[in-house]
């Protein structure tokens, strides 16, 4: 069956989507919002996204890849935002396997080998 991608924005939409696919492996990449020209305010996210996308084919069958825009810069900087509070995210970009302690944060997302390891680890 391969894998499928869902693009969401904001915390409630993320949670709703993750819950819908409960039971399948879910990987999520959290990035800062993109402007009208498609560029994110988060330079690390700009670097990480193509690296992650290139490794997506390594995800197990039936996986769901959720690409989640967290919000604008000021929302992200707020220490009480829902992503920080509920998902315990500490930085963007974050790539994680939902429901497990497995995640890669910031520069770790630039390394194809680490991304591949996250997608293929059991």
């Amino acid at each position: 069956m391969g894998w499928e991608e869902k693009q969401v924005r904001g915390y409630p939409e993320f949670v709703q989507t993750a819950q819908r696919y409960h039971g399948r492996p879910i990987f999520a990449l959290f990035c800062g919002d993109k402007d009208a020209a498609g560029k994110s305010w988060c330079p690390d996210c700009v670097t990480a996204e193509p690296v992650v996308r290139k490794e997506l084919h390594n995800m197990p069958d039936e996986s769901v890849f959720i690409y989640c825009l967290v919000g604008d810069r000021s929302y992200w900087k707020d220490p009480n935002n829902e992503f920080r509070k509920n998902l315990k995210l500490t930085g963007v970009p974050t790539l994680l396997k939902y429901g497990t302690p497995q995640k890669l944060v910031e520069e770790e997302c630039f390394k194809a080998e680490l991304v591949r390891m996250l997608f293929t680890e059991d």
Partner: protein
Amino acid sequence: QEAAKYEKKVMVLDFVMPTPLGNSWGLGGTCVNVGCIPKKLMHQAALLGQALQDSRKYGWQFTEEVKHNWMTMTESVQNYIGSLNWGYRVSLREKNVTYENAYGEFVGPHTVKATNKRGVEKLYTAERFLIATGERPRYLGIPGDKEYCISSDDLFSLPYCPGKTLVVGASYVALECAGFLAGLGLDVTVMVRSILLRGFDQDIANKIGEYMEEHGIKFIREFVPIKVEQIEEGTPGRLKVTAKSTTGNQITEGEYNTVLVAIGRDACTRKIGLDKVGVKINEKTGKIPVNDEEQTNVPYIYAVGDILQDKLELTPVAIQAARLLVQRLYGGATSKCDYVNVPTTVFTPLEYGACGYSEEAAVQKFGEENIEVYHSHFWPLEWTVPSRDNNKCYAKIICNIQDNERVIGFHVLGPNAGEITQGFAAAMRCGLTKEQLDSTIGIHPVCAEVCT
């Protein structure tokens, strides 16, 4: 990781043989997965239960009885361990250390065979090898032990509350587990063959046992189990344990939900092909004798950790020995691991921190007339308000009279024993004497000041 810093090409072969009940775990070894880490977290869970009781006297008001949920605790603990397993995977990858989840064994000079869980075999050669395979719990060797009993390998991820538990053994593993299980509200019995905490200061070991007994843990002394039968299946089920006295013909029987075996650990050295490369092991204990540079009798094979003969079985000792070894091999360093005055802590309900000689060992080595023992009971300030025991906490310092009253043994029994002991261990490494200790002004009001 240390070797990789020196640009060496490094591979790690880590594989966990499942327990008799099918349990296994991730990268990190015993300490992380089924030892120190989950143990301390569960000990903390038990301490928090006690703190909740104490809190009423400090003014906290809550009407409901406080209950403990085993699954909630275990899930949190396993989640944390999972993050550590993952952290090590990322760390090894980032440092370019090749990791294989495969069982390694020597098949010939400089050659190992790695077998993964699907049975796929690969051969690897290397210039040098470091063995750090550790130990696994020993079973009793009686009918029903592997089918019905659990060990520390199973306890920390048990998917159901163990219920009424019999702990067989009097090692620190046995007493620490019995301690926190009772602290969580379970009915706990400890079956002891002879003495408590063999190898530790016996005066303190007995105080630990007394404290546990006074706080609801039952002890059956001088008995060993001879058979375990299942009365009823379940999670947990019901088990019948038959035990025989070590001093006569008396037989006793008991019914428990869970039987936890903690009678010792055996080195994982018998099935890794050491005979194929000529590494000598102690046939009786399975331990590997090494020189003071952690080298086995085969020059290119080294060993560290719990498998070493006559060395302390502690995580930080293994880590330090390994780091220094690699620095000597590839970094031009000369420091060897110092196995003397290594501090340790037993996390029983009343914690015990120690560094250096026990009283018995000091008497044996230096002679009773040449040592001076200073000791005192103390009552932690935090225990006064809730009226907790006022004569159980205890500190003991052993000094060598012939060497300026050098402090050669430090023992403290009380809350936060580990935190207290760490600093004094550093002082002992600097050659702490009784006079220096006396001239150190205490911090007030803390337990540690009783030592100054």
